[in-house]
């Protein structure tokens, strides 16, 4: 039984690890969007 649960643990661990990585990528993109928004706001202020 321990082999069975080890296999399922690893299987779902890898899947969730990938989903977490996707989530981290999304956070990174959101940060970039904020930077872009700030820069756009700055340009509007200057002009």
């Amino acid at each position, binding site marked *: 039984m321990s082999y069975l649960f080890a*296999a*399922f643990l*690893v299987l779902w661990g890898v899947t969730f690890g990938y989903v977490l990585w996707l989530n981290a*990528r999304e956070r990174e993109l959101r940060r970039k969007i904020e930077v872009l928004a700030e*820069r756009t706001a700055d340009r509007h202020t200057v002009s």
Partner: protein
Amino acid sequence: MRLRRIIPGHLLTIVSALFMAVALVFTFLIAPREAVMGDVQRIFYFHVAAAWTGYLALVVAFLASVLCLTRGPGRWDGLALSSVEIGLVFVTEGIVSGSIWAKAAWGVWWTWDPRLTTSAVLWLIYASYLTLRKAVQEESRRARIAAVYAVMGFAAVPINFMAIRWWRTVHPVVLESSGLHLGPTMLATLVLSVVAFTLLYFTLLRLRLRLQDAGDRIESLMRCPGGVS
């Protein structure tokens, strides 16, 4: 055309989760206990499903790479990258679950059997694809080089699939020319697992393509001379 729009939204996630839940119930509660191997045989349902989904993802990556070379990168490059990435996740799951099954069945974690060896080669080929992409900076050149590599690397997929038929191996052959030799409940569990994993692949692909689109748009805005710099 946005590729991610081909795949419907939240409905896919919900259906995928439902199928996965049913597949888990079948795997642990409904499928009969195998007479020789006992409960450890239940690994088989998700091991085969992960391997199948890995193949599917790599077939999609191959087709996207061919389209990338014939019709220009466009969104095909993003699809190829996304599918390779997800394919690698499933190939990893197939290898690791197979290794755990091997320890229980054969007494060793790994043996240089043709199927296992070609699986390791397959994994390395596609892991190298991701590394290769990081090594090339210029976007269109990177797309072309990666597409050529993915098309050539795809040769490893049929070799891996046929390895247990071409060479002498200790790996069980599930799909034979005479069909699948499984009882009805075991077959239903396997089919459910394969469907659940296939749906999971499309769910992950949809998420990954959404990120790819957003990332591409942000990068082009940051690079755009008249845009934000």
